């Protein structure tokens, strides 16, 4: 840790990812990691009414913004490795949307960083979801939840 924060590994991609391989890769060949907290966000079918989500994104900004948030997480917690993958394009129900994996010496830091990153990705990363309904029609743009803004806000209230 004295050697400085690790470089976060970030990917914004259309392709699916292998959550398993991604998290394994973070720890491979090292024995300083005691805790690996990871999160995968998936596309829910909303009780069978939703067929897929179309995720629009601002390509030129997305990776930069995620990197900014990742850098903030690395400044707050002594993380040993950090991997973030966010997909865009059409994602069918049951499909993976986002992965956050944070490795640290201890579990508290790994959990906190993963939670922080997900809250910030929801509120700050330039992605917009639209529903494709099971009946073949185009659904509405997903509305942000008030709870998501509050979730992101609690990180500024704490630790300042």
């Amino acid at each position, binding site marked *: 840790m004295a050697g400085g924060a690790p470089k976060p590994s970030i990917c914004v991609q259309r392709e699916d990812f292998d959550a398993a391989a991604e998290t394994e890769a973070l720890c491979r060949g090292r024995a300083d990691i005691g805790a690996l907290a990871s999160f995968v*966000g998936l596309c829910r079918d909303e009780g069978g009414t939703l067929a897929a989500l179309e*995720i*629009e*994104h*601002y390509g*030129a*900004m997305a990776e*930069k*913004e995620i990197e*900014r948030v990742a850098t903030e997480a690395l400044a707050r917690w002594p993380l040993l490795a950090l991997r973030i993958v*966010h997909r865009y394009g059409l994602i069918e129900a049951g499909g993976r*949307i*986002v992965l956050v994996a944070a490795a640290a010496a201890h579990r508290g830091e790994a959990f906190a960083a993963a939670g922080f990153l*997900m809250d910030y*990705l*929801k*509120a*700050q*990363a*330039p*992605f*917009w*979801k*639209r529903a494709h309904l099971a009946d073949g029609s185009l659904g509405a*743009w*997903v*509305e*942000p939840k008030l709870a*998501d*803004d509050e979730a992101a806000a609690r990180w500024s209230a704490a630790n300042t």
Partner: protein
Amino acid sequence: MKALYFAWLRERVGKSEEEIQPPASVSTVADLIVWLSARDETYAHAFEKRNVIRAAIDHAHVRHDAKIFGAKEIAFFPPMTGG
């Protein structure tokens, strides 16, 4: 400068990007929204819910009172729903 639109804002404006040349009197993001809204009914409708519209200048989030001088790319979009 280039203006970009995303999600339902893009659909309402009817395009995803365009070159714009606001006059010097348009100095903030808020000014730019007023100026664009004055163009026609389409823009007026797209930007009517001003308090929910977010903006980014050159790939960084900004508030509506941010200055736009020197900006190469200004993006407008609804609240994000990633993650």
